[in-house]
């Protein structure tokens, strides 16, 4: 469990396949991408993935360079080129017709426009505010775990993703936003539909289904906003509807819809992925389960456990940027309008930054150096909330459950077909009550 085994690291493994024949759009590589990442870091750190039509940025230092220079590497243009890729005009027309409008994501704008909105959200999930939410989050999580434990005690297989991780994060964010009546399955479908727009793997039929889901989501959001226009409540949707920004302006209607949409989706999807990963790791890596067991009463070690989980298996693995001018990156001269995919997961796996990167090591001195939450102006605004949910989930799972095991062979675990996240689709588990 320590990183003092230099030279004896478990190797992420070069594949036998030449780099040119690999692509992240191949679902098999997408599911087990570390060999591809490592080959890129060693052979071609800013690598053109032909099938994807994107430059993959694989080394830690280059990733940080990109994220620290948001005017050269535009989030807005990178995102726009990724969004509903191949079907954008048709997608947009559907949302305008049936979904109240097409509302570009205000959080994916570039500075200075982005800064105005970002300052507002910065205040929503400070580490101090999130600390006050711990009892409520613990109550949600223990209730869910007890339900699962009952189910497992009856000999049923439990799905760690769909029965636990997803309803957990949906309950937490809905409570924050003030959505008291919600259908977890519906929000899950909305989330998949939104995240598929940056996944690069949907066909037209799927796009039509997803667009219909997003229309439904937006109509729901607009109704929630309208209900608070004249009668504000003590919740985050009310705060956004009535917010005054630092420059004295109000959010436009389109900005408010886009922000609430982003909070619902980003507030559940990626953290659910992390909690799915937590259960997968506990079921498949006994040394990690032992480390967690030994850490459960130590707040510092629990925080470190969460960071290391996020480093070793970051939910968001690749987000898009676009160059706004010709620029050299990692020894490669990129033209203006080069479409990049920043591989956060490869940065976290970079052996020049993290000794034995595949080792789960709570004692790393640079444990917070990972880029799972991003870096710079677009750094995850919900990082503290996400950490808290993962920490409480880890603590309560290990306190209440034992013998967590996969109920299927590990080869049968499937990942969502998308370049943006690495997310387990279903996680059949068995366990006992401790």
């Amino acid at each position, binding site marked *: 469990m320590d990183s003092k085994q230099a030279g004896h690291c478990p190797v992420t493994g070069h594949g036998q396949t030449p780099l040119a024949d690999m692509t992240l759009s191949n679902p098999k590589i997408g599911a087990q991408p570390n060999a591809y990442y490592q080959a890129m870091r060693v052979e071609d750190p800013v690598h053109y993935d032909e099938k994807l039509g994107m430059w993959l940025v694989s080394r830690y230092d280059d990733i940080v360079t990109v994220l620290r220079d948001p005017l050269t590497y535009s989030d807005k243009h990178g995102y726009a080129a990724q969004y509903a890729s191949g079907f954008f005009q048709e997608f947009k027309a559907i949302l305008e017709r049936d979904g109240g409008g097409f509302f570009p994501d205000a959080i994916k704008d570039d500075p200075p426009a982005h800064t105005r909105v*970002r*300052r507002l959200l*910065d*205040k929503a*999930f*400070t*580490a*101090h505010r999130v*600390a006050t939410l711990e009892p409520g989050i613990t109550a949600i999580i223990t209730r869910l775990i007890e339900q699962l434990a009952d189910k497992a005690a009856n000999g049923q297989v439990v799905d760690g993703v769909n029965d636990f991780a997803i309803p957990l994060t949906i309950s937490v964010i809905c409570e924050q936003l003030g959505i008291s009546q919600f259908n977890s399955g519906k929000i899950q479908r909305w989330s998949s539909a939104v995240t598929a727009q940056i996944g690069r793997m949907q066909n037209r039929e799927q796009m039509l289904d997803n667009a219909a889901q997003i229309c439904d989501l937006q109509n729901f959001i607009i109704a929630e906003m309208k209900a608070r226009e004249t009668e504000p409540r003590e919740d985050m949707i009310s705060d956004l509807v009535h917010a005054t920004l630092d420059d004295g302006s109000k959010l436009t209607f389109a900005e408010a819809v886009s922000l609430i949409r982003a909070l619902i989706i980003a507030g559940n999807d990626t953290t659910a992925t992390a909690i799915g990963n937590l259960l997968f790791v506990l079921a498949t890596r006994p040394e990690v389960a032992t480390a967690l067991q030994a850490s459960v009463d130590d*707040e*510092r070690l629990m*925080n*470190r456990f969460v*960071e290391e989980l996020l480093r070793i298996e970051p939910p968001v693995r690749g987000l898009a940027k676009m160059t706004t001018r010709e620029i050299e990156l990692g020894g490669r001269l990129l033209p203006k309008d080069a479409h990049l995919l920043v591989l956060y997961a490869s940065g976290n796996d970079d052996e020049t930054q993290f000794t034995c990167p595949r080792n789960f090591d709570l004692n790393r*001195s*640079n*444990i*917070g*150096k990972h880029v799972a*939450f991003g*870096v*710079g*102006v677009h*750094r995850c*605004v919900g*990082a*503290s909330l996400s*950490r808290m949910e993962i920490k409480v989930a880890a603590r309560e799972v290990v306190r209440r459950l034992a013998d967590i095991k996969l109920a299927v062979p590990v080869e049968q675990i499937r990942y969502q077909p998308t370049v943006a996240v690495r997310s387990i689709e279903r996680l059949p588990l068995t366990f006992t009550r401790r």
Partner: protein
Amino acid sequence: MRGIRVVLIQNDGVARTIDNAAIGVSLMEVGRAEGVDGILGDCGGGCSCATCHVYVDAEWQQRVGPPDDVEIATLDMVSHLQQSNSRLCCQIVLTPELDGLKVTVAPAE
């Protein structure tokens, strides 16, 4: 209201003196607005990213005070850079008593 003077020493050795720092805002906001090298404040003052890490000068430590539990947890994420006088300067709110405050910006990762 008249502001106060704060001094932030950058990693290149340059002392950045800010003469009219507003009372009631955080040292991070002042440093970031003035473009002090190494004061990034990615999370906007939420005490969650440790990109505004400074070392408080010995003579100011008592007046600035120690970090609370939440800040200690975030400082632990950069334990390779942490010292006994480490603070995240988004958590140092400027008051008249801090007129003359001097800190050194922690090195980048």
